[in-house]
């Protein structure tokens, strides 16, 4: 039960709160509105007319599809790598004591504290030093640096709250390492991994800076959008794509929220 039930908040506070919410969300609505505008050269307010023809145009543009495919591919692979490496790292750091543990913990988190541009430049010079050609994998590598952190942060917090004696209890009752992982560790960290994975996917999906340095000529969806804005050509197509992206990413995040709501939630750290 809330202790302040029945108490009314001052009108000024309500106005400020409403203003804050509008400031945050009106621009997103504007994007939706511009997806239907008839004016294709500039964003003109109010829209001179409304049309749905940009949806068909966007559907038939192969560059939209290739950018979308690349983004999904990169985000999936980076998230998968992050889930494996982040979980393993979190397990090592939280379950055992070894020389240099704190250093490793810091080094893992560092990429998220480091400005993306530094990560990007560093990776780019490393790639050119070793003559590695740009490919999907160079982008994946760049994204994995911060995706691992997100998964690691979620997993390590859950591991810390998962009593170490649970693992010992499982072994004591006859379960080997694999059985213990499957029946005890995974159920206990599952929701944390789901939340971390979702966040990692979302971060990778809209990443621009690191991708600029590690992508070469290929365009992920956010890079493609950026280019579209700079060189105006069928501008509302960008808005159509943006709208689809919002809807497509919003649903899994909503799902993750409902799935992790029952267990005590761990906030992911944003980049």
């Amino acid at each position, binding site marked *: 039960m809330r202790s302040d039930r029945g108490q009314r908040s001052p009108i000024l506070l309500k106005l400020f709160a409403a203003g804050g919410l509008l400031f945050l969300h009106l621009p997103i609505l504007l994007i939706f509105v511009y997806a239907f505008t008839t004016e294709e050269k500039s964003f003109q307010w109010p829209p001179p007319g409304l049309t749905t023809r940009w949806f068909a145009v966007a559907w038939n543009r192969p560059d939209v599809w290739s950018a979308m495919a690349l983004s999904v591919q990169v985000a999936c692979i980076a998230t998968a790598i992050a889930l494996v490496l982040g979980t393993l790292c979190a397990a090592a750091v939280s379950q055992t004591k070894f020389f240099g543990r704190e250093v490793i913990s810091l080094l893992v988190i560092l990429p998220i504290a480091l400005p993306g541009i530094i990560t990007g430049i560093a990776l780019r010079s490393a790639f050119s030093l070793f003559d590695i050609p740009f490919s999907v994998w160079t982008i994946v590598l760049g994204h994995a640096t911060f995706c691992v952190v997100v998964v690691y942060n979620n997993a390590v917090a859950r591991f810390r709250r998962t009593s170490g004696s649970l693992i010992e209890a499982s072994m*004591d*009752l*006859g379960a080997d390492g694999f059985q213990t992982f499957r029946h005890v560790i995974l159920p206990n960290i599952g929701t944390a991994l789901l939340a971390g994975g979702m966040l990692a996917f979302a971060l990778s999906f809209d990443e621009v800076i690191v991708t600029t340095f590690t992508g070469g000529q290929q365009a992920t969806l956010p890079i493609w959008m950026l280019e579209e804005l700079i060189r105006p050509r069928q501008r509302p197509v960008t808005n159509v794509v943006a709208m689809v992206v919002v809807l497509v990413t919003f649903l899994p995040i909503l799902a993750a929220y409902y799935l992790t709501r029952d267990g005590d939630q761990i906030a992911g750290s944003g980049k």
Partner: protein
Amino acid sequence: MTSAVRFQKVSRHFGSVRAVDGVDLDVASGEFFAMLGPSGSGKTTCLRLIAGFEQPTAGAIEIFGERADGVPPYRRNVNTVFQDYALFPHLNILDNVAYGLMVKGVGTAERHREADRALELVKLPGYGTRKPAQLSGGQRQRVALARALVNKPKVLLLDEPLGALDLKLREQMQEELKSLQRALGITFVFVTHDQGEALSMADRVAVFNNGGIVQQGTPQEIYRLPKTAFVADFVGSSNLLSPDLMALLGGDRRWASLRPEAVRLAGDGTEATVENVSFLGAATRLAVEMHGTKLHVMLPAGADVPGVGTRVRLAWNRQDIHYMDDAA
């Protein structure tokens, strides 16, 4: 009599820390064995060595005649009741208890039947569908017990099993554990820092200090004939008499212990001054000063109790003076 657990010169060192150092241990089959000692004395490490969570740095461990060192915990017929119970929070009580059978591949119907039976054994029938978080501390402890016993271990290890329970529950569980052990005939090895618990429950007690066993024996032996001053001090509120005092009293110049209840007030004894009087119900405890040493004297109920500050004379039987190895 077969040995359930045998340690031969077992050591477990963590870097320069000698957690367990050259321990010889022999737990008989069907015995209720207590490992007693202050924290950091090595008793818990010994328990973990039996369970397999630790491997010895040196020495040999045998469980029912089979070499156990190098064998992982999941291949030992030994189960543990953990201090924090370590129940799986995501499983209900029935699945917690059936966990050991589940990983061994026992079918659902059979393992649930066995788990139900184990829950009845610990007096928690019908609790199977609840989650661990919905149970009280005492109930969780019973579940932990059932979860271990359902595997029919040859040795059951208990790590401070009653430490987290309140006094009344603790006394009740002491009796239940004891009768459970008698009924099942399983060897119980438990770790405790509570000397009362060790003395009242165990058939035999090993007193640990500084990574080694100072004394092993029945509770009576440990209490009456402490081998060192540490045992005398840790196991009971025994009076420690220094070598100088013993010489003054006409005895050997060695450390000795004297039980408070062995001292009586007499007309022809050694002079002492009463400093404090505590009424304990069944007895009255005097704190007295004798030749500069503070002693406790336990007077039975009904005896005349001298006032604070009065001079009294103390006497005891010669055989109640128990000489010890050292003052460590």
